[in-house]
């Protein structure tokens, strides 16, 4: 059975003024895809092609105008908000911005537990410790504030925050873009390891085709709010159909192969 199943999701961004009829500024979709447990889906496309919007639709920051998202065969709607919080979690692009500067890491991690689970204080604390260790941090990091952490550690805390509710799917908006090469490969390794161990579904947006090729099982190519191509990574990279995809892949290959001679 599919872990997550997205059927015909559409979204229309409308501007309505008092006297003029509402007009559509941007429309997204229809988007269809499905993902098995332990699989990775990469979304690629230009700036402004609606990648981030799609991510927001998946985690529920925006509500789609039509279509549905099935999780383990069950339709998710706004009524299942709590379940959605549990099962689909998001990592933001800017790990610095997504951590609260005024409270400690421990308090940050405790918040989703208080809001979504019935655990008592003791259970919460042990859960926090376990999750911190899972992402390669120490128990003591829960007393740290945001400004005491390095970039890589911030990314790990953001990941811990996503993982603490034992989600089934993680959605990430450019998780590697702001990281330095050595920290980036650490994070990639960590994510792949966690995915293998926990059987997570992982959906991420990226510009970096090298990483996409390395990590993703499936690819979704978007242009102007529409999905123009989707399929297995190998297929897309070797036999792209659409012009846009061809151009993207070709440029990437050129960059990889061309060296100054």
């Amino acid at each position: 059975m599919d872990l997550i199943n997205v059927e015909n999701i559409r979204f229309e961004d409308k501007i309505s003024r008092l006297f003029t009829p509402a007009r559509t500024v941007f429309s997204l979709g229809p988007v269809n895809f499905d993902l098995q447990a332990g699989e990775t889906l990469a979304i690629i496309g230009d700036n402004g092609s609606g990648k981030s919007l799609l991510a927001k639709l998946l985690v529920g920051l925006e509500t789609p105008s039509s279509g549905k998202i099935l999780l383990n065969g069950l339709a998710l709607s706004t009524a299942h908000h709590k379940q959605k919080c549990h099962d689909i979690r998001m990592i933001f692009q800017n790990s610095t911005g997504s951590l609260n500067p005024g409270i400690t890491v421990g308090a940050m991690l405790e918040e989703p537990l208080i809001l979504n689970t019935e655990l008592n204080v003791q259970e919460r604390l042990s859960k926090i410790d376990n999750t911190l260790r899972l992402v390669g941090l120490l128990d003591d990091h829960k007393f740290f504030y945001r400004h005491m952490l390095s970039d890589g550690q911030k990314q790990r805390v953001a990941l811990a925050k996503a993982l603490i509710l034992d989600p089934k799917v993680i959605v990430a908006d450019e998780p590697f873009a702001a990281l330095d090469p050595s920290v980036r490969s650490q994070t990639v390794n960590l994510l792949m390891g966690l995915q293998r161990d926990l059987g997570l579904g992982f959906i991420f947006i990226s510009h970096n085709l090298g990483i996409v090729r390395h990590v993703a099982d499936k690819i979704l190519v978007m242009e102007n709010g529409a999905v123009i191509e989707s399929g297995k990574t190998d297929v897309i990279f070797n036999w792209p159909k659409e012009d846009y995809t061809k151009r993207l892949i070709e440029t990437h290959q050129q960059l990889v192969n061309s060296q100054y001679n």
Partner: protein
Amino acid sequence: MILLDVKNLTLELELAGEWVKALDKINLVINQGQIHALVGESGSGKSLIVKAIVGALPNKRWKITADRMNWRGQDLLSMSVQKRREIVKSDISVIFQNPINSLDPLLNLGDQLKQSINIAALPKHLFWQRNQYKNRRVEELLHRVGIKNHERFLKTYPHQIPSNLLQKFMVAMALASDPKLIIADDPTRGMEVTSKAQILRLLSRVNQVKDTSILFVSHDLLAISSMSHCMTVLYSGQTVETGELQQLRKRAYHPYTQALLDSAPSFRKDLPPKSPLTTLAGTIPTLHHLPIGCRLGPRCPRARKECVVTPSPRKIHGHYYSCHYPLHWAGR
């Protein structure tokens, strides 16, 4: 011919009452007509080097010392501020990573481009012809960077233009004064592949046509390796390795260079998908907590007792490296 020759550039800054070496004995040589890449992660001092070269650091909180910092034979450090500005203005242009922040939002693009044209370099003419000359020059510049619809483009303001086009415009602005050296400070950060490739092609064309040297500052190895001749790798304010790019990629002597090369999955064709990437443990040290000796020490897989002493640069075939226990060494 050697354009820029920097030897043992050290930059100290005061942090909580203590002087910290943000740059520690940096060596950098840029030849005429060369694209030289400066690679390093954040905090490695790339931007500081750029600022030190163009003299954009305020003198107060910094101490800059160098054995040599020559621009075409003239010593940059000992000359007057006035003269240095003069040289930087006529010979060096800088392209910044974020074009929208480095342009004036209130002037249209045409005016800004005209401002950066060096009047002295124009042929002799009467003053009423000046504007005409300028307009012709602006047109020529825009065509050279591949912006076609120049008349409409020149009337627009920075916020109306997408950022990849704006970055091309920045290249045009950098070319306006006919510089000998263009410093590109991470010009392709955050761009997607196609626009990145365009900018890179543009820069290497500028290099080929005009024989302009380019100092390309970035941490994107893919971009660097597609166009550069030479590469200098920085780590935490120390030069780790310098040499011709091909040589470096084939045989890196410093463990950090190797780790950097390995961290980009695109470079390794034999790598099966989903296999773990090789990486260095730990994170980049902050300025408050710089390790003594070789600053890679705590993260280095080959570190030994001697690494607490800063290694001096060694040279083989024009390929400098600073490491006590270089890779690929046992076989030689």
